[in-house]
């Protein structure tokens, strides 16, 4: 690992100040992804600003009738919080499908959003990768791409976002609260937080330099009765998703009044299935409608040589997740 200066920020102002005075500094949350990437020589910051101990560790009520998750609260405490389990069980389920007990105890909520792709070409420094070193090309697009994107990829990058938590947040419709080094705060719609690769795959998100995630705002809960997070992977635990589906249904009088649907493992960002969501609203929760929604969702899929299987797997996963969400006893 390359040498770096360790800066233990005592408060937010100190952290923001440190970040704004060094363009090559990185915030350090739980370190579960960053430290690994530094060992691999993929990330090369010359300063780490420790922010995991900053005071954003609570879950509080917000003005929308929902809850706000502290950016520095760890994944275990978030997923197991009584109010999250009761009102946002889809989020608990997605978060607990990720990684392991040990890693979830370390990983922060803010850091979860900012974890980087597990594309093997990104990790292997002897390989070309536009995300790691812009301009070197994409090794995966004509290489081993079984684990890669089927939506929204570009000629420059076919990597996928690895988070499970973010898939649930996309389905639920969260907002991200960020602090700028100049002291101002702004709210970012969850679907605008991450970006597609385009010709700048080195940028995973629309965060500005030095900005710090301080909270995640959840809307008023509507999917607490019917929820399911389906994660398809190469082994049944402790693996990243090949395909995952977060499904939430609001059912009133036997009819779907609102659907929240998003996929993981298929794009450079958590992939919200807006068309399918809109289709399901006002429909009966049955097999035929779930299948029609899954067809709509997969319409625009553009698989690569090695991941054609993800289209069929995606369809079946959507139907399965919706069915299990619906059949769950409220």
């Amino acid at each position, binding site marked *: *690992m390359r*040498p*770096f*200066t*360790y800066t*233990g920020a005592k408060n937010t102002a100190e952290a923001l100040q440190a970040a704004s005075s060094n363009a090559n500094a990185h915030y*350090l949350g739980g*370190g*579960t992804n960053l*430290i*690994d990437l530094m*060992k*691999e020589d993929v990330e090369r910051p010359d300063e*780490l600003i*420790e922010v*995991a*101990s900053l005071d954003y560790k609570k879950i509080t009520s917000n003005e929308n009738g929902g809850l706000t998750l502290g950016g520095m609260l760890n994944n*275990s405490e978030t*997923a*197991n919080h*009584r109010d999250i*389990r*009761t009102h946002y*069980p889809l989020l*608990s*389920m997605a978060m*607990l*499908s990720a*990684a*392991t*007990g*040990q*890693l979830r*105890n*370390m990983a922060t909520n803010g850091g979860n959003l900012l974890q980087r792709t597990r594309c093997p070409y990104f990790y292997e420094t002897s390989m070309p990768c536009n995300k790691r070193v812009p301009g070197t090309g994409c090794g995966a697009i004509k290489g081993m791409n079984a684990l890669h994107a089927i939506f929204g990829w570009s000629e420059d990058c076919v990597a996928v976002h690895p988070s499970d938590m973010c898939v649930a947040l996309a389905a639920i419709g969260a907002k991200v609260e960020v602090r700028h080094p100049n002291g101002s705060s702004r709210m970012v719609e969850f679907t605008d937080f991450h970006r597609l690769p385009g010709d700048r795959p080195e940028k995973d998100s629309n965060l500005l330099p030095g900005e710090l995630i301080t909270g995640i705002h959840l809307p008023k809960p509507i999917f*607490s009765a019917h*929820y399911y997070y389906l*994660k398809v992977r190469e082994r*049944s*635990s*402790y693996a990243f998703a090949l395909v995952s589906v977060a499904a939430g249904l609001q059912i009133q009088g036997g009819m779907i009044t609102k659907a929240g649907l998003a996929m993981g493992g298929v794009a450079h960002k958590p992939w919200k299935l807006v068309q399918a969501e809109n289709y399901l609203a006002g429909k009966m929760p049955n097999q035929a409608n779930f299948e029609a929604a899954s067809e709509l969702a997969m319409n625009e899929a553009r698989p690569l040589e090695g991941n054609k299987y993800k289209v069929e797997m995606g369809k079946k996963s959507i139907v399965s997740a919706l069915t299990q969400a619906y059949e*769950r006893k409220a």
Partner: protein
Amino acid sequence: MGELEKRKKNTGSDNLTEDEKKIFDQLGLKNGASRRKFLKLVSSASLSVYASSYATSPLFANTAKDLPHHQRVMLNEVKVNLRVNDRLKPLTLDSRTSLLDTLREHLALTGTKKGCDHGQCGACTVLVDGKRKLSCLTLAATCEDREITTIEGLADGNEPNAMQQAFLKHDGFQCGYCTSGQICSSVALLEEAKNGEASYVTEDFRKIETNLRLSEEEIRERMSGNICRCGVYNNIVQAFKEVHSGNDEMPSWEFATKEQMKKAKNS
């Protein structure tokens, strides 16, 4: 002379072969030298040839007293007061030092193992403020004011912790490399079950209860962060169950029948 004696004579460790005798003559050494002496001579000769380059190198000319007193340069040093197994240790470390390397290389607590060093195996699991974490991805610098417990800190004096005893009883290991991580993880999981924490395979996330009695499926999911390359998972689950339930546990697995094997193959 029998065949065996002949061979013994020719290959006896202290006797020289014809070729070796020839080399001796060329070196101007007397006949009758033993093979052992020959080897000694040859190796000391080659060593001095090797070492002779150093006799004239600047490295050799600069004696130790000319070198600066502290040769080791500490880059970006951080000072950490580390509380490990109820003992406080003030340390000065390179900022890059992981908690794992600190335990093993600076505190000689080698019970915690380095498996993959990338957060993929769980061998380095320790307890930080009672929670299981991976020491390989934790910077020691972040551990000030934290309470760290390693496998060395679980026993009560000479009395092994209940989980350690259960692992012994149920053969919860084969090579033993992942064991300290498995045991630390298990100890933390007992607490998580007491607190009613959920897992991905939990039936209903909205039903919140404490003092959970975990099923085998639950134990396997929750222990998936500790990989055992020998594959003694059945015994590990058994050991965990024994402490978790407080009862003597008997192995609950059985060999698959031919029918079941056939079904599994065709599924």
